[in-house]
């Protein structure tokens, strides 16, 4: 496997791969080349339907197809899948709990140059509010493939969040195991826990190394399934480390930071500090300076971890 692959590429490849085994159809809204559903379209042209630039219609069409027993993948950019078509996702797919898998790509600020209108940093918050919606935010190409398979095998609506930018492959090893709804502890740690999702998982691992050099033992947990959340792994970490930091390429409102705060507050209150996009819109630019600008960095995770430790001691 290549060193760096965008999760959207892994998504398109997985659709084409699993299309041989599972009988699903794929819809897109004029973004197949970008969402990578075109990879599936090329292999299964008769099971692919372009809906044109009409995302709301696409979601309700997907729901209608699903009522007949077919599994459907419906893709667009996260901004339009979760944002523009929120109400169709809620009422046509979520309320009847239909077997529609929403493949949302170009999530977060790593969309880059297209800027704020296309940088969806609220999709996790929106999708979390829909009862029965499963939400998966994979960290790399290996996890993205596993997430697609889990979505196919899961009965009910699933929101899959993929990125535009090529990201390091971190799980390309034999003992990688994906279980829907289960977090994964990636490092041992006793002083503080860093809970990360998506592209922030790799940064969390880097942050743990930096902290280790300063004598701080950080536990890193990867949360790929945002909903249903793995409460057990979070409560155990809160009890055993007593301080938490969350890291996500999403608004700090309503996403991973919120869900971890909710679980920890209700079960084992300890300090939880959040790394994510503060209450702001995105901006055009190259990805590295954007990540700096919004504090989605190893150094910010390290600094928040130290703050959490201080709060714990106080």
């Amino acid at each position, binding site marked *: 496997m290549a060193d760096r692959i965008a999760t959207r590429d892994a998504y398109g490849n997985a659709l084409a791969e699993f299309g041989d085994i599972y009988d699903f159809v794929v819809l897109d809204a004029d973004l197949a080349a970008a969402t990578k559903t075109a990879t599936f379209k090329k292999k299964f042209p008769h099971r692919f339907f372009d809906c044109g630039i009409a995302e*709301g219609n696409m979601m309700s069409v*997907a*729901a209608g197809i699903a009522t*007949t027993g077919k599994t459907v993948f419906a893709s667009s950019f996260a901004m339009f899948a979760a944002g523009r078509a929120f109400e*169709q996702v809620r*009422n*046509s797919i979520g309320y*009847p709990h239909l077997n529609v898998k929403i493949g949302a790509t170009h999530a977060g600020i790593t969309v880059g140059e297209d800027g704020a209108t296309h940088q969806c940093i609220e999709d996790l918050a929106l999708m979390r509010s829909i009862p029965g919606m499963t939400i998966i935010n994979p960290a790399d190409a290996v996890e993205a493939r596993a997430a697609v398979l889990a979505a196919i095998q899961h009965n009910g609506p699933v929101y899959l969040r993929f990125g535009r930018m090529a990201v390091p492959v971190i799980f390309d090893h034999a003992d990688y195991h994906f279980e829907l709804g289960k977090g994964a502890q990636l490092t041992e740690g006793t002083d503080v826990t860093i809970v990360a999702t998506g592209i922030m998982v790799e940064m969390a691992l880097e942050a743990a190394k930096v902290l280790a050099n300063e004598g701080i033992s950080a536990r890193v947990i990867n949360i790929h399934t945002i909903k249903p959340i793995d409460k057990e792994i979070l409560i155990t970490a809160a009890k055993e480390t007593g301080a938490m930091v969350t890291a996500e390429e999403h608004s700090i409102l309503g996403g991973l930071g919120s869900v971890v705060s909710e679980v920890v507050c209700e079960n084992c209150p300890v300090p939880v500090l959040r790394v994510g996009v503060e209450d702001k819109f995105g901006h055009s630019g190259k990805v590295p300076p954007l990540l700096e600008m919004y504090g989605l960095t190893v150094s910010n995770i390290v600094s928040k971890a130290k703050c959490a430790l201080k709060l714990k001691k106080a």
Partner: protein
Amino acid sequence: MEQVKLNRLNQIAAQIRLGIIEGVHAAKSGHPGGSLSIAEIITYLYFEEMNVDPKNPRWEDRDRFVLSKGHTAPALYAALAEKGFFSRDELKKLRQVDSFLQGHPDMNGIPGVDMSTGSLGLGFSAACGMALAAKVSEKDYRVYTIIGDGESQEGQIWEAAMFAAHYKLDNLCAIFDWNGLQIDGPVAEIMNPTPYDKKLEAFGFHVISIDGHDFDQIAVAFEEAKSIKGKPVAIIAKTIKGKGVSFMENQVGWHGSAPNDEQYEIAVAEIKATM
């Protein structure tokens, strides 16, 4: 149409109107006007046109029906009860916490409901999805949907119309209930979506215009719809909102309000007089 058949359909439509009034009266809320306007169309669909089985509501080869104007659920529920999908007694529990009859159609809770609807514009798209699925699965079931004239102000209606024509969904029949009124007033004054016929033709539909209360015209329209190949069909049904209850007919105020006890008695008497 033979007189015997016409009498039978008129009786069923009257029963459905009774069910609408009973349900909305008992609930003290709901949408009688647009339910009454589709009584004949929904009667014909469930008792002549569609291939459905009340004993097997999820039968996979059944024809599908989507009430895109989902607020007129009382008409659909009355038709389903009349057809035998559930007991007629349930209609009086409309919108109550101990009933499965939600304010708007719920496909998981209500036997015979093929799609959850209520948010306007979404049902037509779902019907398109069902029709497309039939093509993909090489099944010959047909899909019917009723869309409100006010509802056609929703942009999604036209997104769906584009989709239906683009994918040549000739197994899809969209009935536009042109009763002319919406909550805030006459549709033509609020935001005029006419001409429906020319617009739908331009979108690629085969369009049939009828009187939506005339069973002969309804029958001919559905026959014609089945003969059309390569394009979807729209039936534009001119109707009277509140049809069958004199004081509700063509009155904006009866879009979404329930009759009081006195009005209920008058409405029931008027409907029963036609039976």
